[in-house]
């Protein structure tokens, strides 16, 4: 039996009828066509499917679409528009820019999840130490980079965002 849900995704409200067992990641990818959210392990371990649900990083393969009813979701597609001062004119979110500048990715499979988890980290802790960054990203696996460049990308973003505030 389908259920009515209303979810705000990247600032746009969607009214949908979904099967209760539909996972949020499939809702985003297959129903809304937002394929920037990746599926890595399907078993809650890799973090590739991470999105922000009401501002908190969650693994969207471990949340039902119906659990997001009435909530706000941010995916990688909507992040840039939320960056301070960016608005509709495009450009990159400072965390995206950090991954670009510091070579925080190789194949890019883990990147959307890495970036969204990092966004929550910097929201909670604008000046994280290396240990704090590593701890915050413990739920996001990368098979390519060896993580070091990812740490540097997050540091770059932290610096850039703190400058923006001054």
């Amino acid at each position, binding site marked *: *039996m389908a*259920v009515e849900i209303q979810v705000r995704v990247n600032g746009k409200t969607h009214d949908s009828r979904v*099967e*209760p*067992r539909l*996972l949020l990641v*499939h809702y985003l990818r297959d129903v809304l066509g937002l394929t920037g959210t990746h599926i890595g392990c*399907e*078993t*809650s*371990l890799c*973090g590739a499917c*991470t999105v922000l649900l009401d501002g*908190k*990083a*969650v*693994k969207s*393969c*471990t*949340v*039902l679409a*119906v*659990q997001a*009813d*009435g909530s706000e979701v941010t995916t990688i597609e909507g992040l840039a528009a939320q960056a301070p001062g960016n608005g509709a004119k495009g450009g990159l979110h400072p965390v995206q820019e950090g991954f670009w500048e510091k070579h925080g990715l190789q194949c890019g499979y883990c990147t959307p999840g890495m970036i969204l*988890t990092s966004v*929550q*980290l910097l929201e909670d802790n604008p000046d994280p130490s290396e240990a704090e960054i590593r701890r*915050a990203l*413990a*739920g*996001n696996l990368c098979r390519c980079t060896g993580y070091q460049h990812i740490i540097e990308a997050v540091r770059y973003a932290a610096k850039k965002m703190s400058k923006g505030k001054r």
Partner: protein
Amino acid sequence: MIPAAFEYHVPKTLEETLRLLERHGDEAKVLAGGHSLLPLMKLRLAAPRYVIDIGRLRGMSYIREENGQIAIGALTTHADLESSALLLMRCPLLPETAAEIGDVQVRNRGTLGGSLAHADPAGDYPASILALDAEIIAASTAGTRTICARDFFVDMLTTQLRPGEILSQVRVPPLAPRTGAAYCKLHQPASGFAIVGVAARLTLGKGGKIDSAAVGITGVGPKAYRAAAVEKALRGKKPSPKLLADAARHAAQGVEPLSDLHASAEYRREMAAVFTRRALERAIARAQGKKA
């Protein structure tokens, strides 16, 4: 990996939840954070006919002082426990335990009530809940009852909760004077779950002897337990590194340790002693007012 089909209910109140549970009995599962239930449903290890989503019930996520105890709502997330200013001040053992669970994403979704009700033998909270002598409040259409932590865990994935009951609140005592507590965990590196997790709470008497000792251990046996032999070896004694190490050797006494892919029974027994010693050392140092 998609769960089997189910009928979905989102009750608005606790009363409505309890009526639904009463009506559907064993065929229903409540869904809190979903971070134990949904993985099981995706693997089709669980296929409930009715899923009752309590995740957004109002007024069940809180941490507050009540009649000299700290009351925590069942839907309080691991992340909220980890960062609660009240708990960090009055019962730091719980934030220390919550911080060891999974990763940020898991802590954002998973709840205290769900974790205790699930009673995973490798879950973290059971050790601390036991060491704190916490009280667990269960609600049903018949009313509420209080279950003490020692009676709550029955077996692997089995608790005292009856069909039709939900865990509504957990009550813990604030840290007493001259008391130190600590949680030390050996992580399974891939899943992050506990191979061994030890929570210790020690209170020193006026003369510096150990007045009371409570040690809860998870990961070792099919359910978390109080290490009575360790506690007995400590009570009334003056703490020394040797005393703590000797007492810790009894960590798995009377328990048949689990043996699996990640750790043999022998290894678990050995690590139970090591991590018990570490938890005792840290708890004593804190009881003595040292930074640890």
